[in-house]
């Protein structure tokens, strides 16, 4: 019973926001229950255009493009790096692996300033390159580590047999390791999607044209333009922005929780 009470208390604010997004704005301030007394879609219609000539369909499309490219890039580059660390013998392996673990602990603030200057020089302001290139280059060591842990757990006999049969490393990688690593690759992909979808600082730094904005930037813009008075439309768009995460959670809850669990355990 206590557990259920705690669970309800934990999720209440989010559920309340979803309910409130279907209420006339005046009602939001008096109704603390979950269900609207009067149902309306007006907030969604009003919120859809945070400013003239900018609609949330555009913002959703932008966020989706960035997230999908980030997922593809991160899964490919992390799996390749992890295969090398887990299965190949090469000079400096231990050193590089230790460096990779250290990068996980590095606070991102120490990189944003020089990276910003670098990408500015490249002329990448108002492009999506600063948001996806780091993913294509497996900059987040956490995911490399996650994949290494998984590939180490695969039976070596299979790929050793394949090598004796004359397969090259690319073939072993593509035909054996990649198919067997699907769960870990899916976990990496899903977390990358969520991180990219929620990312606020990156787009805030690199995107200055509203037409390029992502969903979080659109929400923030809405907040700025309306002095935080338009809670109804804001809640409507906030609730919509969480939908992809809810959907991922519903379909992949097991992969996510198992992925999280393995990181903390030897």
């Amino acid at each position: 019973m206590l557990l259920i009470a705690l669970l309800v208390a934990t999720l209440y604010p989010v559920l309340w926001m979803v309910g409130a997004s279907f209420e006339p704005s005046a009602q939001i301030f008096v109704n603390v229950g979950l269900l609207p007394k009067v149902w309306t879609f007006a907030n969604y219609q009003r919120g859809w255009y945070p400013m003239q000539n900018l609609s949330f369909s555009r913002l959703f499309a932008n966020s989706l493009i960035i997230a999908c490219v980030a997922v593809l890039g991160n899964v490919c580059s992390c799996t390749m790096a992890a295969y090398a660390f887990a299965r190949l013998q090469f000079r400096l392996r231990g050193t590089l692996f230790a460096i990779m673990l250290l990068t996980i602990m590095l606070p991102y603030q120490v990189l944003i300033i020089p990276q910003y200057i670098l990408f500015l020089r490249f002329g990448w302001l108002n492009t999506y390159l600063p948001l996806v290139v780091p993913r294509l280059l497996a900059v987040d060591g956490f995911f490399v580590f996650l994949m290494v842990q998984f590939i180490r757990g695969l039976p070596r006999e299979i790929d050793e047999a394949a090598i004796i049969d004359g397969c090259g490393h690319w073939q072993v990688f593509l035909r054996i390791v990649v198919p067997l690593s699907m769960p870990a690759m899916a976990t990496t992909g899903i977390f990358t999607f969520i991180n990219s979808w929620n990312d606020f600082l990156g787009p805030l730094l690199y995107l200055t044209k509203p037409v390029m904005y992502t969903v979080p930037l659109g929400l923030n813009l809405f907040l700025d333009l309306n002095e935080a008075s338009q809670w109804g439309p804001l809640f409507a768009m906030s609730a919509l922005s969480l939908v992809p995460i809810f959907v991922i959670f519903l379909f992949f809850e097991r992969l996510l929780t198992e992925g999280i669990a393995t990181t903390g355990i030897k």
Partner: protein
Amino acid sequence: MPAGPRHPGAKPRRRDDRIAYLFLAPWLLGLVGITVGPLLASLGLSFTHYDLLSAPSWTGLTNYRRMIAGDPSFLQSLVVTVLYVAISVPSVLVISLALALVLNRGLRGLTLYRGLFYLPSLLGGSVALAVLWRQVFGIDGMLNHVLALVHITGQSWIGSPGTALYTLVLLNVWQFGATMIIFLAGLRQIPQDLYEAAAVDGARRWRQLLQITIPMLSPVIFFNTVLGLIRAFQVFTSAYVISNGTGGPADSMLLYALYLYQQGFVNYDMGYAAAMAWVLVVMIAVLTGAAFLSARFWVHYAD
């Protein structure tokens, strides 16, 4: 966590340097070009004055001196951040461990509870949740309406310096689910026969907790502590959105990452922001190092 690659069966293997570096190429390029290169560049920058418009000018230790002696806002952001970390990290640890222990007793619907408690961890970093927090803890927000039902007159929790930071702490603690899941996984690895033996010896529940569960779980507690510290020091989005980028009333929400952003990208004082970033790296390194040193005394690695 293993500190490095293990060598299973030390039989000499042929080395595959060239092919290995092909596989590593994207990661290496990122390491050199986007991580280590910029890292060193920002160290150099921290000894200069640089506003993006003119070339950086060498100012030696001026930035570092200013932090200690000439910048009340910096000291304020340090105090705010330390307070934020010191409250939220232990709270998350205690709550998530307690819940993991309760859930581990094998009740029905465990996976459902586990999943639903985990959900906030996926949502909490988003702007949407910061927007919600801004409403709930505002003067005319949901919390005050709930309090009004029991005839308590609330205040603007976000608008008063005394409480603003705690709304951010609460948002962090609200995301305890991920930590809880790691604890649950750790609990499942503890051999049951330890408890059976203890029960035969007549050890009560709380003694079993103190003498079996906590020691056996100590590597996981350690992992969650270090990770929690590193993450809490870097929180940005919630502080930015809830305080509208300002740092809140009387700078009470001026988390380190937010102040660094203001200096670097609002005032374009890139050298100073780089110096701040390096101070943060050193602080996190010292804290992590201290955690690893202390681990020798309380973390129990079973073989």
